[in-house]
């Protein structure tokens, strides 16, 4: 008999905290973190736009570090604390950054937006008053095909103004 999924890729038990909730799940060793987040936990805010780690739609913050969750296996996140777009605001409120994305029309289809928000959130935590060049560098790993980025730069600048972001 040919090898099966079970023999090729044994399942492992992992514990991951996402947006403050701790999940214990059995995952196949080969499962990508993004598929674990989206398919197993049904947190579908983080998206997938490529197969190669280029697009950044799956960006999340893992133990304080911005990462592309398609470039990690779920088992590598065992024990980690992860933030996704669903967790950056309290309850139904929007963060200043989320609000400025809307105010500045920094999104159209909204598919890249969660990844953009995570990259910008990580930037503003590390650097509350970034220059435009710093904003551009921070978003260089996120592809948007709708906006041309210009309004995204403005939205991040707005969110940075007056600190507090």
């Amino acid at each position: 008999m040919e090898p099966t999924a079970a023999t090729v890729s044994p399942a492992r038990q992992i514990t991951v905290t996402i947006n403050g909730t701790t999940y214990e799940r059995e995952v196949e060793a080969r499962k990508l973190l993004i598929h674990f987040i989206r398919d197993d936990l049904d947190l579908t805010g983080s998206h997938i736009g490529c197969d190669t780690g280029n697009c950044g739609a799956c960006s999340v913050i893992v133990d304080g570090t911005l990462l592309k969750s398609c470039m990690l296996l779920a088992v590598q996140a065992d024990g980690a604390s992860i933030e996704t777009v669903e967790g950056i605001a309290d309850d139904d409120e929007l963060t200043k950054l989320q609000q400025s994305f809307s105010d500045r029309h920094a999104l159209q289809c909204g598919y890249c937006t969660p990844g953009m928000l995570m990259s910008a959130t990580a930037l503003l935590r590390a650097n509350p008053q970034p220059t435009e060049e710093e904003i551009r560098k921070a978003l260089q790993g996120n592809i948007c095909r709708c906006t041309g980025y210009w309004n995204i730069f403005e939205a991040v600048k707005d969110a940075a103004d007056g600190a507090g972001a």
Partner: protein
Amino acid sequence: MSTTTTTPTIAPDVVETEAPAKQWSGQNVPRKEDKRLVQGQGVFVDDVKRHGMGFVHFVRSPFAHAHITSIDVSKAEEIGGVYGTLTGEEVASLTDPFFQLSTPPGAHLEDYALALGKVRFVGEPVVAVVAETRELARDASELVEVEYEPLDPISDARRAQDGQAPILHEAAGSNVMWEGVYEWGDLDAAFAEADRIVKIKELHFHRFNSTPLECDGALVEYNRGTAQWTIHTNNQFPGFAAIMMGPAMRCGLDKLRFVTQDIGGGFGNKITSHPQLVVCCLLARKLRRPIQWTEWRTDFHLSMSHGNERWFHDTEVAVKADGTLLGFRTKALDDAGAWLRYEPLGGVIWAQVTPGMYRWRHIRLDFTQVATNKAPVSPNRGYSRMQHLWFTERVIDIVAHELDLDPVEVRKRNYIRADEMPYETPNGCVYDSGDYAKMLDVALDLIGWSGIDERRRDAEARGKLLGVGIGSTLDSGTNNFGQSRMINPELQFSGNNEVATVKLDIFGEIVVTLGTTPQGQGHETTAAQVVADILSCSVDDVHVRAGHDSYWNSHAGFSGTYASQFAVTGLGAVKGATDLLAGEIKKLGSVILGAPEEALELAEGTVRIKGTPEAALPFMACGAIINANNAGLPEDLGVTLNCRYVYRPQFEVPDVERKFGNLTLTYAAQVHAAVVEIDPETGAYDVVDYVAVDDCGKRINPQIVEGQVMGATAQALGAATHEQFVYDEDGNLLTPNFYDYHVPHALDMPPLQTGYIESASPFTPLGTKGMGEGGGAGIHAVCAAIQDALRSRGGAIVWDSCNPYHRVWEMLEHPERTRELVEVVER
């Protein structure tokens, strides 16, 4: 010729003339869509899950052209967790080939949802494998054994008509799929009158597409009791998918329910997923479980919706000594790829913009579309008109270059003038309104035209070559499907339509459903703005359902979101339905308030007696009375408060013999200007300044319009500089992912200024024009700017629409190679 459409309503005059000044249209109303999207609560197709669903993975052809000699799925099917497979032979037994739009030879293509007997491009789906996880489906696909007998491929359209060229489709007997001659005016007279004839041997518009960040996908369920499929998908033109799928699957359209919510970008590229949707439908029925398909990025690049690649050969332009352009003739060779999935209909819609923005009246274009061993072409933002308008803009700039004329002056001399609007083109299209010269002035002012020589010297001092280029272009919108008859007189398509319903529910909820499938264009917001203005309420009180569902009964044959039309067809339908509802509210108000309808007005969410605001009936009461408390109402009241309207632009069927008629209702226009600086040592260059000026008539939401302008510009910059689907001689795609296919990133974006003018369309209900596809201007502008910059270094002609650094370097090193492409004949 089209005329202004008036909407029949019960009491239109009162609403139109006495409603308060427009409050919402024209404002930057924040988008209703945004909150869910910034919270990560949108519902995109891959977010839809069902219990027990199986994941599809496609086994794809590794060859560009080959016979399939055998397929063995047994090893894959033996794996635990694999639910089943589907092959081309099964597809051929269960379905008929997709209907072809073309006359012969293209009409003879037998296009099935999976390859049958032969493969014709790398990445063509051959077998579908379904398993309980994505990963297992992919692994099991490796165990499917397909044997091929490779054939010689064609990866260059110019080879397709060689006597020795292999034939892709034996049934067609030729690689020519469709050809036609388009000729208007008097070419002989124009060339006899010309003082100079500029000849251009070859121009090439390259192959790329808009690469929406979300790839294609579907979640398909089959209901065995009703024999109906529910297709959750991001297909952006369900009306087209349905008429392709129904006959092929031998079922009525009522058996195909299409549902979308949020779509992660489309740009036309998500129109022709019907083959994959058929595979999912067949598998859902065969395997008795929901079927999930999410396309991989690599698969999208390999197989979906490439933009039309086009060659222009033996162009001749008739020019007067003063720069007046009389006409041109050219031979367009269109590379359709391996299948005609929306062709040749899409390929020929350049005729909507035959003369571009110019007054020349004598035009001949010999159009030939051929099949090659590449991915099939399909709609892509600017579809076919972009190729043609790039050609006309190249002609303008090459003529100016060769005759030493100022490209700005040539444009101004030859632009169609504002006082000539509405302007009938040589082929019967009617440009509705516009002022191109004024747009150019705005663009030149913003780009700093008057100081450009100083900038040129400054760049030279830094060792750089500076060039400036103009790109002017049209975004024809609300197409007349009657143009399909010019490729095939038997086709029974003409006109266009779109649907909306607006209702007032029991608690006064205003609920709008659209037939469209937006992918980021903000339809929920702009529809609410139009409704709120007519009903004199707040946009916050208007609930526009997200997405599309063919169960809503708010769709028609051409429903979808494509071809720059929502502001006309979609909002025309919304306006029509809302006008009907406003009339019904007044009719009911008349009965309840005991006053004639003429004495009533809608204000502050009520219907009330003018001058007596306390005599008011809130919308909530109206909804409650009709829906739940209607005893005693007059028998013939005729009020449902649930109004459906089909907007139908006024079109005639074109004259098929002359290829003459109005092919689109509106013509938005764009004038872009680009400044580039080239490093003469390497050919590397930067776009250092950029201006985009837009005119799309009345703007319902200026911020959304500007967002479309920006996005289209960014795509054009990507296409002009780097993005291309490159095939090697064996037919392998060399750019199958975002490593090799370089789309613009944050650091690539030049400084951008936008400008606009508003030339209201006289032909549309709201004075709007469809827009969003005008980005082609950016390709034209960058090509022109590069050519301008190279003027002092041998005067190379920019002959290709994509100019990565190596191509610019080649033009610097060997200007003579492109100089050979042009010739001026003095008369």
